[in-house]
């Protein structure tokens, strides 16, 4: 079953109801809904790195949250190694509350699955507890999952995780507080506390956007190395096409809650077929003033996901839109090997 994908996302929808104001209630206006994710499907194979690219508000982070079971999908299915995540997804687990046997068993199952899928957050200046030493930060996940209760075993696991994240020798780092670490080192601590559970899937949510350009490369090559050495699958969500281009295998471009183009990274970047992808690629600055290119700058911004445009949701900003685009919601069409785009003119 080695070819079975580690993760299958099938027609995922996540809608958030808005709160209604007093006048909305009085006037019986219907509750508005934010269509954060509105029908997203993709697979992730073991050891594969998939970039989920999009601007703010495209829904990429929400997809990550749903994949990890941190939110309950409105519709659709998420299979993690054949297990239905959506069946057990919920914000919190009833830890320590008096429960019946089935609830306990379910909790154990959920924990076991959660151990195998971990997340790396965006900002290592905010995601580390400033009062915890590196050792404590990395050992916390072990506490939660009841792994390595013996001191020696635990220390060995933490050493392995820290050194695997490029913080070697581990003894040099584990007694330190985050304030004594550089941004790159902090992010390595965050990665170590995900790695210590030996996950099979990592959701990396903009892991380098808060870091200086000079150290982004080392964090990205660390992720790439983890995939190679441990076969970890990585869902890399970002708005930065250029870094995504450096180390991901496939790329999914999101716009307003949908994937509009999906394919091998090189194909998506060199011959983008959806007009949104084409525009995004065209505005990525090249580090060379001789290559200032013809840019397709889209006007306005990603519209608000409450009132989603009819037909193709990109049509109001699309440079090549025709009348038909406001009527027909385009399906994915095959435009190359493993390369799909949702555009009537792709």
């Amino acid at each position: 079953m080695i070819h079975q994908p580690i993760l299958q996302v099938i027609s995922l929808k996540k809608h958030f109801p808005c709160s209604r104001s007093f006048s909305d209630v009085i006037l019986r206006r219907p509750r508005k809904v934010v269509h954060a994710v509105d029908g997203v499907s993709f697979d992730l194979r073991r050891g594969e790195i998939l970039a989920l690219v999009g601007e703010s508000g495209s829904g990429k982070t929400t997809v990550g949250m749903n994949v990890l079971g941190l939110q309950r999908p409105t519709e659709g299915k998420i299979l993690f190694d054949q297990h239905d995540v959506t069946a057990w997804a919920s914000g919190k687990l009833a830890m320590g509350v008096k429960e019946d046997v089935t609830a306990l068993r379910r909790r154990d199952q959920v924990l076991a699955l959660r151990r195998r899928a971990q997340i790396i957050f965006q900002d290592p200046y905010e995601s580390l507890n400033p009062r915890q030493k590196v050792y404590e930060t990395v050992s916390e996940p072990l506490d939660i999952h009841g792994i390595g209760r013996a001191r020696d075993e635990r220390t060995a696991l933490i050493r392995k995780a820290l050194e695997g994240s490029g913080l070697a020798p581990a003894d040099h780092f584990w007694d330190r507080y985050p304030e004594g670490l550089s941004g790159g080192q902090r992010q390595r601590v965050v990665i170590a506390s995900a790695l210590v559970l030996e996950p099979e899937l990592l959701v990396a949510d903009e892991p380098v956007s808060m870091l200086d350009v000079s150290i982004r490369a080392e964090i990205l090559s660390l992720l790439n190395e983890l995939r190679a050495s441990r076969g970890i699958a990585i869902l890399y969500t970002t708005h930065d096409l250029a870094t995504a281009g450096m180390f991901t295998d496939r790329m999914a471009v999101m716009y307003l809650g949908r994937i509009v183009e999906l394919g091998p990274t090189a194909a998506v970047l060199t011959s983008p077929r959806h007009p949104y992808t084409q525009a995004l690629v065209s505005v990525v600055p090249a580090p060379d003033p001789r290559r200032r290119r013809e840019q397709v700058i889209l006007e306005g911004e990603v519209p608000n996901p409450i009132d989603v445009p009819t037909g193709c949701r990109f049509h109001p900003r699309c440079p090549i839109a025709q009348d038909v685009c406001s009527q027909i919601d385009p399906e994915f069409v095959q435009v190359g090997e493993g390369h799909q785009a949702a555009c009537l003119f792709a």
Partner: protein
Amino acid sequence: MATLAVRNLSVSYVTASGVLLNAAEDVSFQVEQGKSLGIVGESGCGKTTVMMALLRLLPEAGRIIRGEVILEGEELLKYSEADMCAVRWAQIAMVFQGAMNALNPVRTIESQIAEALRIHGVEKGRERERAGELLELVGISPTRGRQYPHQYSGGMRQRAVIAMALACQPRVLIADEPTTALDVMIQAQILRLLVQLQKELNLALVIVTHDLGVVAEICDDVLVMYAGRVAEIGTSDAIYNGPQHPYTRRLLQAFPDIENPHAELLSIPGVPPRLDDLPPGCRFAPRCHSCQDRCLRETPLLIERSPGHSVACHLDYRKIG
């Protein structure tokens, strides 16, 4: 003659114990009307300090040790605070880093622009009209001037802040990290706007950023700073296509290029030195992979190697990686 020229500007911060920390040393550059200069470097290398110093807006602990700031022939460091007030905003305006998030949430955009106009003596009663013109200039419909910051998206707030900076028709516009934290498409919109304003208003534009891509996209000249010193300065073409300082070269190797995704991205190991622990000799030496004995002892001078292209490095760039 350059519109704005900074010569040998050195800035220090005084610590509580009275120690002087050199945040910027011997920084020189100039910008002409209708031209743009990009100042790049990692966080903490002194970029913002230099800008604050030339506007004389340093925090209390900041001291200008020496140097000259010359705006159209006038030496600004000799100005009294009152005279300097008349220069700021009217002649040199700055879009501060994160200013788009510092708009007053309980006042309309229009009234915030009008306030800047009022302080600088725009004819009373005309402020609102002028605020509308300014909004239009940056691509916002004047009717939206009546709205509050929370009704604006990030890109629009950045436009509003730029409009505010342009309120008094300055000759020089400094933008500190104008696109950081904006999405790529919004970044492209803002950069296009800056270029268009620079041309239409014949501004001397200074962009401070850590993003080499932004500078390559819009700047005529580039200054690379490292640990408070100028590492290299030259035209954009010279810096991007013939970088000579090892730091510049490493920065460029760390920058991803979407058209060349298989090029190996290299990090610069280590971090910039702390101000209270500056290495002797070349400040980049501890992180430089071409470092030699001399680099650890002698501070390299900024030497012009070809017209308009100066480098502060002891080594011959043809012999380094």
